[in-house]
């Protein structure tokens, strides 16, 4: 694994790396009290962050793992150790399996669509000098600063089965046969949520990719153009390899944030309905842990989510590993 996670600016990183050890070496040759003073100071500066990290991240996470072996309603002092019971029960829980399937489907579809479209739009906006591109960029970026409640309200208006944006447009175009009950049809509701997820995150990732692409020197493109490379060829031979590290990082981020985003959107838009058909792992965990008073069972679902996200991130990271290219 190369030491440079972003990969977009190798030359500068290389300088930093070379310069890095210098102060340390100077410190080593300096007087002993001075070094200890530095160490203390560094420790004191790090301490608040470390304490906060431990209190708010490490301890709760460990607690999730511990609680998943217990039966507990959430309030009583009455906790019972049940070993792996919670996990074996998960296998027989049809609703859990359905939530898992929904989560995987959302993760795959939304990731592919968002990443693909984000890359495409970023390439078009950086390479083709579109007129009004800052307006497009602004418009596409706006959804990522909206709160989920607002997004849910917007999509409630978009998906409204009677006079919503989609069905209304279809009606105006005399395509009445294509009108759908977007949030009421059990086969469609998950894809309606997926549309909202893509809409929400597209702009953010597009801007990230645009930043990566902007740092690619123009002369590389000029040279390839002289050699007769088409824009499509340029994209696959130059742009994509040079922002590859960037892409990997965002992919891992996205996989993790999509798990969370699916939860908040499902909670706000459908509540998991109709009849559990749009339930995702986190929303089901919430229902079990809080509404159904099976806190330990909910935490077992939490452990599954943790392991799942971890595994997916690892796989994505492994599958996309390439030798970083430099320009």
């Amino acid at each position, binding site marked *: 694994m190369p030491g440079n996670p972003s990969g977009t600016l190798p030359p500068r990183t290389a300088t930093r790396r070379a310069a890095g050890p210098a102060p340390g070496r100077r410190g080593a040759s300096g007087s002993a009290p001075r070094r200890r003073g530095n160490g203390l100071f560094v420790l004191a500066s790090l301490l608040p962050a470390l304490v906060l990290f431990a209190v708010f991240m490490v301890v709760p996470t460990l607690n999730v793992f511990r609680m998943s072996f217990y039966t507990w309603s959430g*309030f009583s002092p009455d906790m019972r150790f049940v070993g792996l019971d919670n996990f074996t*029960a998960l296998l027989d*829980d049809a609703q859990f399996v359905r939530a898992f399937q929904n989560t995987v489907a959302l993760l795959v579809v939304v990731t592919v669509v968002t990443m693909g479209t984000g890359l495409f739009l970023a390439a078009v906006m950086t390479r083709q000098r579109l007129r009004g591109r800052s307006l497009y960029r602004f418009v596409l970026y706006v959804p990522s600063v909206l709160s989920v409640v607002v997004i849910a309200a917007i999509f409630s208006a978009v998906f*409204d*089965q009677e006079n919503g944006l989609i069905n209304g447009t279809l009606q105006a175009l005399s395509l009445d046969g294509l009108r759908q009950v977007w949030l009421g049809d059990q086969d469609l509701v998950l894809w309606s949520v997926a549309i909202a997820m893509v809409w929400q995150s597209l702009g953010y990732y597009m801007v990230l990719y645009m930043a990566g692409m902007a740092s690619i020197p123009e002369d590389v493109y000029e040279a390839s153009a002289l050699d007769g490379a088409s824009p499509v060829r340029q994209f696959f031979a130059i742009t994509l390899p040079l922002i590859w590290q960037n892409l990997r990082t965002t992919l891992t981020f996205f996989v993790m944030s999509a798990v969370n985003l699916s939860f908040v959107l499902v909670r706000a838009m459908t509540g998991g309905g*109709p009849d559990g058909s749009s339930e995702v792992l986190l929303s089901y965990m919430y229902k079990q842990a*809080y509404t*159904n008073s*099976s806190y330990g069972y909910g935490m077992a679902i939490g452990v599954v989510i943790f392991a799942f996200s971890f595994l997916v991130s690892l796989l994505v990271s492994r599958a996309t590993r390439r030798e970083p290219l430099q320009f």
Partner: protein
Amino acid sequence: MRRSLVLASAAITALGLLTGCAAEGDGQDSGTTTLSVAALEGGYGRDMYTKVIQAYERAHPGVDVQLQISKSIEDEITPNMKAGRFPDVVVLGQGRKAALTETLIKDKALEDLTPVLQAKVPGEDKTVGDKLIEGIVGNLNTNPYGDGKTYTMPMYYAPTGLFYNKGLFDKKGWKVPATWDEMFELGEKAKKDDVALFTYPTAGYLDSYFFSLLADIGGEQFYTDVMTYKQGVWRTPQARQALDLTARLLKYAAPTTVGYANEQDFTKNQQSVLDNKALFMPNGTWIVGEMADAPRADGFAWGLTPLPAVTEGGKRYITTSVESVWVPAAAKNKDAARDFVAYLYSDEAAKIFAASDAIQPIEGVAGSLTEENAEFYKVYEDPSVAALVGGFASTAPVKGVDIKATLFDTANSVISGDKTLDQWQTALHEASEKLRQAGG
């Protein structure tokens, strides 16, 4: 010198960040009792609570009542409760999404309030039990373990049933159906006028519908059997009849029902009644306030009817929603809490509550109602109609089993044809058996 200054300030910053977590004062040594009361801010508003508390504090100078009130009170008090700091009195009913009351009942974490029933109302001669209307305590709602002990006190009660537009019935010359046969006849008639017979805001609103229907079909004993998960109860012909009737009714559901049956859009289903697109929906008296600003058809007037009778002249039950007040077993000031709860049933407090349309189950209070509300409470006057209180009995939590979701949410799938009646019945049977084994 400068370094030590830097170090000191770093340390202070670190400590400062930590004090945020540690700060927690307990000002208990001033001689007065601090009683913490948490209440759900429901449709009745929050003013009535501040007024009642002022009145209580006037009569009890040694008590300082701290009120915490919110529309999502569960979210605000549960973090503290998990840390062991419980409020002394909580006004919160069952059937909320967060199910806090249910969770504490399952946990046996409520204080026995039977003594309050025998206690005299502060400043009056009668006991609390004497003042309450008959049949309001002693059911599964107030005595969740069926052992004769009261753990939640009934606070406000309201009828729930089928709400409809009286104006439309007058205009069309239709009669509110008294039997299910008449109901389905009306469904056919209304269909010709492009009006659907039935809709529901979300499937969860079917609770009052199902409770009444089960009692209508099999009587109170059968209803209790279902609520306490009696063995094989969902395999009985009565249960089948209830599901059959429901499936038939759902065939008449407004086409938009399922698509709007979510948290975001449920008011659109309610709107369809206001717009004369659907005739009946199960709901509660809060609907009047909830839809007060919504546009409506000309001549619209809210009406409330119990479910039609299964056989002509048969007894009909009206599910009555009862908000509760309870004291957590882990509360610090239990004596003061019990006294405060008893005070909530005083004439003084009842008057303040009734002014906000919050009707307590105290004899004679329903007389002081506003006109629209009095109309709703009239359903109790029909001799063939009886009040039905309660809900599913509490059990130890069972992983992955939520019988309410199985009973109500499946309606969405029955309308869309994703599940059959047999699947519904089987799922209910399995859920009921699992809950019974967990100890009903």
